């Protein structure tokens, strides 16, 4: 009897040993404390939280049924949004590629360029499109120029960073081979680097265009053109059914954008 118990006693199994368990509990405790602090300290009027579902469904009811008033205006604004996104993405290509070239460790001419390139990319990415839009509206006034510039300035960071990474990941051997023939730097780039990064380039630009369509829908909310302007107008005048129509139009636009994106990707890649 005693032997069996002894045997069993020796054969205990625990998933985590003492040290691992301590760490797991400590991490859990830390997370819980953080959440607890956030909940306690945050400036929320808690009765409103319980009322929230009610309020949300209330708003939903006010939006139904969606109204077709001003549909042509909405569609025009939708076109404008698409133009903003497309033109801006197109312009970005010319700016982002040189920056990507500078920011890639294997193609940058010197250290100063590397840091400059990286700095440009990081600043571009750290400032949200809307904030760029605010800035450009303050400078150039409300309108589509502010919107286009905002998208350009944000997209440079996105396309530049991903292209830079693509450039850094190329196979060095064709580059070596080209350099060995005595080709100039520009020709080496054209023959050894460009063909290797073309597929990535295409995918990145298409992806960013898709994201930019989404971003362009909200530029108007700070005055930078596109459907956001109409949306802001409808919200300000509490024309909820019109808001619903605009939202539906936006979903359709986004879905169309996704469809075009997957079509392009499957056709070319």
């Amino acid at each position, binding site marked *: 009897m005693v032997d069996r118990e002894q*045997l*069993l006693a020796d*054969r*205990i*199994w625990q*998933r985590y040993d003492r040290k691992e368990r301590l760490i797991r509990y400590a991490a859990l405790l830390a997370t819980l404390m953080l959440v607890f602090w956030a909940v306690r300290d945050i400036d929320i009027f808690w009765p409103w939280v319980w009322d929230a579902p009610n309020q949300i469904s209330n708003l939903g009811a006010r939006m139904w049924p969606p109204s077709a008033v001003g549909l042509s205006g909405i569609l025009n604004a939708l076109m404008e949004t698409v133009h903003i996104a497309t033109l801006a993405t197109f312009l970005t290509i010319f700016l982002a590629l040189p920056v990507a070239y500078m920011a890639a460790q294997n193609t940058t001419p010197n250290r100063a360029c590397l840091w400059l390139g990286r700095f440009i990319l990081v600043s571009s990415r750290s400032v949200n499109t809307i904030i760029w839009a605010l800035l450009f509206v303050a400078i150039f006034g409300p309108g589509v120029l502010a919107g286009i510039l905002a998208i350009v300035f944000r997209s440079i960071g996105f396309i530049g960073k991903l292209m830079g990474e693509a450039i850094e990941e190329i196979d060095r051997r064709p580059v070596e081979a080209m350099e060995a023939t005595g080709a100039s730097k520009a020709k080496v780039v054209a023959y050894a680097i460009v063909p290797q990064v073309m597929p990535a380039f295409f995918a990145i630009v298409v992806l960013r265009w898709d994201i930019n369509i989404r971003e362009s829908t909200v530029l108007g909310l700070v005055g930078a053109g596109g459907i956001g302007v109409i949306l802001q107008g409808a919200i300000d005048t509490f024309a909820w059914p019109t808001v619903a129509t605009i939202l539906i139009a936006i979903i359709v636009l986004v879905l169309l954008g996704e469809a075009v994106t997957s079509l392009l990707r499957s056709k070319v890649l």
Partner: protein
Amino acid sequence: MLEITNLVKRYGHSEAVLKGLDLKVEGNSVVSIVGASGAGKSTMLRCINRLVEPTSGSIKLNGTELVNLKGAELRRARRKIGMVFQGFNLLDRLTVMENVLAGRLGYVSFYQAISRRYPPADIERAFVLMERVGIAHYANKRADELSGGERQRVGVVRALMQEPDVLLADEPTASLDPRTSEQIMMLLQSLASELSLPVLINIHNVAQAKTYTERIVGLRHGKMIFDGQPGDFNKDALDAIYGGIEAPDDAITETPGTAVEGGTP
């Protein structure tokens, strides 16, 4: 006792993969099932534990009809059927012990499963079985850190942890090197007699089937065309089953030269 009667499996409207199989496995026999790829070996085995749904027919395990069980009844039936897989199918990110204990999932509560609080008797059994097959020292290692043969042994222990009434092995050695696969076959054979367990093994390697099992069932295109002792499994039987398809693993060709593939100009 496992009794399969007129088992038919058809996908959509195409030709049936299993065309009315009858099989009776009694007591503690070790049965090997041989046949070319596509003969229906895997389908038949998976029909037994309903990983594949039979189209018609009957499968009885110790008197219980398996074919029309659903939900909790099906799960209760499954826990009595142990399965060893060709690809081992281990939970790679979990430890060996957790993999082995997962064999008890049909028996423990949800809470016990999630919190890993298995009954001491199960843990004891796990240790005993792991020692028997020689992997006890890996208990707390991640399953994907083991070699192929060791991983299959974990799979075998997991299946045995279910205290099954029958053990199904779906090409357990196909992913292993020749020496390791001999070890696994030996293991299955000895475990079958130690635990008085009927075992069905799908296998390509006819030589191993003859060495380690006491009954060979041959399938071809979904029909059973051989059922007998290894001693009776001769060249004619082999041809009937593989019919001109050269089985690279077989070692009973009469003329030494013909089994060699490739290399001839």
